[in-house]
């Protein structure tokens, strides 16, 4: 018996690296993870470069955070070197032969450095260090520690792929009428609005220093802007009567769009944030609804929802309200209600949700060709928000039984849960947070 086990262990140990890698890839692409998701691309794990994060003596927490961040970036096959790995230490040289056998393209190595860590990205095929940098790090007990480590992850992703990662970002969402903030990896949950009031529709400013939301009172509500660092509240001009919903900042931060509801219907307005004045009306509903404005990244256009044709559908207009036209095609009388558009950071797509078979599903419409792509198919999936990389979406899904937040990689269809306490909805994903913007909790 013991002998059999030993033989089995030896057999496993002697398996070629390729087999190990395929086994890992298969484990990652489980049907449970991808349940309810249909994407236009076949998931081909072999197309992603393999990456190993080496253990760093005394840097376990940094390594663990970075490894998870790179995994969540969905740009790498995460490989485990196990005990076979060797660190280059001060010399920066490692045994590239091992990692070639594992078919790893990259090896990430950490070493202690005065006041922080040194991170190295090894190019395995070229058998050399591609990039390395010393990063200052506060003590692990510091409130800013995790975000600094996330920035290291994002920089390593940039070294390897040319595009920075999205780990140094945060999300806002609503749970039980309160707005919370959480890091992109589901850590550091923090309440931003008081209990006992209903706060809805949080929206980040582009610089990450403040957010806008609706304070719903007795069937009425104003839009306010709240500073992350001080908690100070600023009412948005024109929103202090009737009901005002779905705020959105323009990319330059100078303008805020919102929808104003009164007995003539719901219409989109913009107000100057910098001057704090001058609400300008962009739509004229005549008892129809126009709401959920979202700016294109160049700030020149606004996608929005309108009931002008009966059911709510997604339209687009110039940022001054002219040139209003349909954005997401629909069949009159047949296509379900379409809501909650958000323009992707690269400008190419608008995500929204549409009622299909009495449930909500996520769709993308490409702005140039107006072609639709359905992203989800099982359960109820809605209110999506783009990650800074324009390839990940956070959205609300009831696939676990209650409405919670999930993240999908548009490229691979891989889905993971963003763990939040209890039922959660109306997420808003920040842009990449710089050091000045990412204020610690007040």
């Amino acid at each position, binding site marked *: 018996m013991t002998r059999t086990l030993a033989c089995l262990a030896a057999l496993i140990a002697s398996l070629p690296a390729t087999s190990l890698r395929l086994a890992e890839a298969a484990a990652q692409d489980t049907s449970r993870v991808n349940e309810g998701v249909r994407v236009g691309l076949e998931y081909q794990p072999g197309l992603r470069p393999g990456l190993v994060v080496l253990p760093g003596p005394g840097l376990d927490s940094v390594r663990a955070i970075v490894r998870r961040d790179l995994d969540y970036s969905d740009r790498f096959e995460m490989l485990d070197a196990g005990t076979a790995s060797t660190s280059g230490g001060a010399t920066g040289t490692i045994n590239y032969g091992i990692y070639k056998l594992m078919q790893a393209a990259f090896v990430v190595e950490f070493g202690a450095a005065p006041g922080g860590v040194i991170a190295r990205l090894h190019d395995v095929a070229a058998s050399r260090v591609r990039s390395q940098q010393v990063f200052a790090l506060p003590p692990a007990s510091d409130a800013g520690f995790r975000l600094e480590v996330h920035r290291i992850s994002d920089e390593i992703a940039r070294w390897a792929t040319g595009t920075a990662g999205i780990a140094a970002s945060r999300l806002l969402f609503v749970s039980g009428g309160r707005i919370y903030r959480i890091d992109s990896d589901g850590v550091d949950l923090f309440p931003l609005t008081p209990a006992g009031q209903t706060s809805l529709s949080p929206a980040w400013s582009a610089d990450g220093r403040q957010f806008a939301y609706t304070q719903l009172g007795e069937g009425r509500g104003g839009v306010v802007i709240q500073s992350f660092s001080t908690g100070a509240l600023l009412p948005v001009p024109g929103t202090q009567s009737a009901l005002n*919903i779905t705020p959105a900042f323009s990319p330059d931060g100078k303008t805020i769009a919102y929808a104003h509801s009164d*007995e003539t*219907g719901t219409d989109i307005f913009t107000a100057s944030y910098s001057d704090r004045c001058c609400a300008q009306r962009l739509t004229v509903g005549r008892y129809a609804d126009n709401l959920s404005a979202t700016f294109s990244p160049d700030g020149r256009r606004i996608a929005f929802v309108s009931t002008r044709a009966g059911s709510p559908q997604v339209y687009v207009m110039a940022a001054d309200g002219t040139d209003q036209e349909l954005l997401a095609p629909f069949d009159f009388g047949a296509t379900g209600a379409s809501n909650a558009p958000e323009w992707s950071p690269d400008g190419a797509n608008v995500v929204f*949700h549409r009622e299909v078979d009495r449930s909500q599903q996520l769709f993308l419409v490409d702005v140039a060709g107006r072609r639709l792509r359905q992203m989800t198919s099982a359960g109820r999936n809605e209110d999506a928000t783009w990650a800074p990389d324009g390839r990940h979406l956070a959205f609300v899904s009831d696939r676990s039984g209650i409405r919670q937040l999930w993240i999908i990689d548009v490229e691979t269809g891989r889905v993971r849960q963003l763990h939040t306490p209890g039922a959660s909805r109306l997420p808003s994903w920040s842009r990449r947070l710089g050091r000045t913007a990412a204020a610690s909790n007040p």
Partner: protein
Amino acid sequence: MRASSLLMLLATTAVAVGCGGKKPPEEPEPQPAPAPAPAPAPPDDSAERERLEREAMAREAAERARVVAADLSAMINFDYDQAAVRSADEANLDRKSAILQANPNVRVTISGHADERGSDEYNLALGNRRAAAAKRHLQNKGVDGARLDVVSYGEERPLNPGHDEAAWAQNRRDDFQVTAGGSNLVAPQ
């Protein structure tokens, strides 16, 4: 036989436990027979008759006011993703219109609600449209719009917390709340 004994034992135990071990309450003392009703008032006692009549009228008026108040606050319901007043609810709104015109000091807040099936944010706009539709109907019947406030709660305040068709149908509604002049409501002529 054994089973029923056991049941009795259990029942006794349950009573003892239920009463915290205290003695069961004593039998009530037999009450003296009620005193005979006072002799009917003589027919010529007009003051007493007036008092009774006034009381009866007050009761009737209170009952009428209760019915009027109920008519005024009766909710109306809507089809899914629709804000048009259903024909079945037109009589409801017409009664409200008559009551509002008979009680010119009454103000009403109309709050529109939606079920959870639709989109959270859109439902606020939809609720607003539902409340506005009822207001327009009442205005068309001659009620001064300044007496009618329109608000919306979207899906944030369901009447029925269930997640089925019956609950949703109840939650797609307009509520009518009297905010001023609600005491001494008179019925329309």
